[in-house]
């Protein structure tokens, strides 16, 4: 029982992450009709916003201590972080909270990235075949990746959660169950809440603002909205930028869970496509539902009891579920007819 509860919690957490990554992708799919293979790269850029911010505030003042030498005989460099030297306790605090604080950096950066990408590139591909969109966005993803690799190297760069939420919470004990039975990392719960918040925010934005209404109308029927004389192009730019921010923030907050490297986006790309399509093209609730569904199923499929009966099931569960759902429901969980069907 404890085990099942724990796996369910874990499934929710994974689902939150999947849903968050899929959310931006499906926004772009649904409104702009663009197959964006660079979405993973946006996630990666977000993660590297956190890395850069951390590097920036832990920049070190290098002084050479001539009395000591390194193992290879050069003079020893002594490093003291600027932030600490200049801001004292506040500096220490900000280093501690560098991941969440770097959201403040990530939002403008990702907005800018999204804006530039859409205006400079994606815009010209709205009416081009999907094949061209795939090629150009894939090319862009490689370029972004290689730039990051050239700057930060290929190894994963660890980012730590703030001390306050670094360890694990004994949820079992809190619920009055056996202590130590249900333990879950604080930061993952923060991530789940964060994901829920962002998802709710995007939904509220689309539901309750006039801007959102137009975008939703555009998702339903792009031509009509265009005919209404609404400047849909400008709104598309904003939607793309929002999607970029969502992807970027997902990346920022994920860094304490998965040390980011330049390839992290590609690793998520396929998965996010599967989530979006299983959810149904052009459906935001579908993407969210699919994210949670796949997360929970993956979590349960990885239990030893399940793997003993079906060896290897944990490795293919996501794809298996995708196949079954697409065969039972032709347009995924909540897809609409005619979106990306030809």
């Amino acid at each position: 029982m404890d085990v099942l509860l724990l796996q369910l919690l874990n499934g929710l957490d994974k689902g939150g992450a999947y849903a968050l990554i899929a959310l931006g992708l499906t926004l772009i799919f649904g409104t702009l009709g663009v197959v964006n293979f660079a979405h993973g790269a946006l996630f990666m850029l977000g993660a590297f916003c956190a890395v850069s911010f951390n590097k920036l505030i832990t920049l070190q003042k290098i002084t050479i201590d001539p009395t000591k030498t390194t193992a290879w005989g050069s003079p020893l460099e002594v490093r003291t972080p600027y932030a600490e030297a200049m801001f004292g306790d506040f500096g220490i605090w900000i280093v501690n909270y560098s991941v969440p604080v770097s959201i403040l950096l990530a939002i403008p950066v990702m907005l800018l990235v999204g804006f530039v990408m859409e205006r400079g590139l994606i815009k010209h591909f709205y009416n081009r075949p999907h094949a061209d969109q795939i090629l150009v966005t894939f090319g862009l993803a490689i370029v972004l990746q290689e730039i990051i690799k050239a700057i930060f190297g290929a190894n994963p760069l660890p980012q730590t959660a703030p001390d306050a939420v670094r360890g694990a919470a004994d949820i079992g004990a809190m619920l009055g169950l056996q202590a130590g039975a249900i333990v879950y990392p604080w930061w993952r719960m923060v991530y789940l809440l964060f994901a829920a918040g962002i998802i709710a925010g995007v939904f509220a934005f689309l539901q309750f603002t006039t801007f959102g209404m137009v975008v939703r109308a555009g998702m339903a029927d792009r031509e009509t909205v265009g005919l209404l004389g609404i400047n849909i192009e400008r709104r598309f730019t904003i939607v793309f930028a929002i999607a970029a921010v969502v992807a970027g923030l997902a990346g920022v907050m994920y860094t304490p869970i998965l040390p980011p490297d330049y390839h992290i986006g590609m690793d998520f790309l396929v998965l996010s496509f599967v989530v979006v399509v299983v959810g149904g093209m052009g459906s935001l609730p579908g993407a969210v539902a699919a994210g949670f569904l796949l997360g929970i199923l993956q979590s349960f499929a990885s239990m030893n009891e399940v793997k003993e009966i079906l060896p290897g099931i944990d490795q293919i569960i996501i794809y298996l579920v995708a196949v079954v759902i697409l065969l039972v429901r032709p347009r995924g969980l909540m897809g609409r007819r005619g979106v990306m069907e030809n």
Partner: protein
Amino acid sequence: MSTTPTSSRDLLMFAVFAVAVLTMPFWLAPIGAGYPDLLQKFAIYGLFATGFNLLFGLTGYLSFGHAAFLGVGSYTAVWSFKLLGMNPVPAVILAVVTSGVFAMAIGFVSLRRSGIYFSILTLAFAQMSYNLAYSVLTPITNGETGLRVLRTDPRLFDAASQGDAPLVSTLFGVEMNGYPGFYFCAVLLIIGFFIAQRIFRSPFGTMLRAVKSNQNRMNYTGLNPRPYTLAAFVISGMYAGLAGALLCITDPLAGAERMQWTASGEVVLMTILGGMGTLLGPILGAGLIKYFENIFSAFNDQTLHSIFGFLPDFLETPVVAITGLFVGEGWHLTLGVLFMLIVIFLPGGIMEGFSRIGRVFRRSSGAKGSHQTAPAE
């Protein structure tokens, strides 16, 4: 205006293609690509992309799991070596048949959906194949290490010649590596190209393009699109299986990573880069990507310094530093930039570029000119 090339023009094109392929060792040598392994790869991936294009270019169905068939072909070929012997002929036949059957099964299910739903179904099947081949199916695939021929294998038909003979595929006493291996692949590429050309010009090919153009009208014209797309899917799966078999004939090792989504993605990129729906485009795209992968990745600072050695020192260092970003460990960057440039400036891929050059040439050579031929090829 558009006209289908006449049969004599097609024959000419085929002849030029065949000669060009067979003389590749000559004319590719100056750009450093005239060595057997890369030549083999050109031919093999050319076949893979040609087959992929029969599905994607003609019907518009974008399979994101074609690498699965490449992998199945490879495993079948190696098993044929292990059980039957090192002759490439049964390996080729078995690989094509097995991958055809595999494609039939996957295609039958996946083609119930279209558009991106179809793409994701094929992707899912391929990823499942890959994940299982890597782990649970290790007894059949030898997992991460890859399936190889061992001296202890039964090899029914040439067990007599066991001993110290190297374990490479052998046809009539000629080992299928090095140049003989390339010519074996080249001949199959030429045959594969010929078949593709026939399919392009055939009623079947026309029907496939009808699938891409308007399935609704096709239905109301009394045609059933499903068997057409399934046939195209199976044929292109067989091409992939053949390519997989050739990879093992020239080099008897089959690894699971051949089935990964990145490998499926690669053939998509090759086809789009070269020009989808054209006969030559996918082959050019395949060649270009393989060239970058093998030649650009091999440059290092030392080679760059020797290339730019003629420059004065104050120029040489920055030039080497800048080009160094794009070669060696940065060869992916070049590839990414190339993808973007081509798709931005040449929407129809490399073939579009050729036809533009052709048009300019024709115009400047004073042809009366209004009767343009669209790039059917």
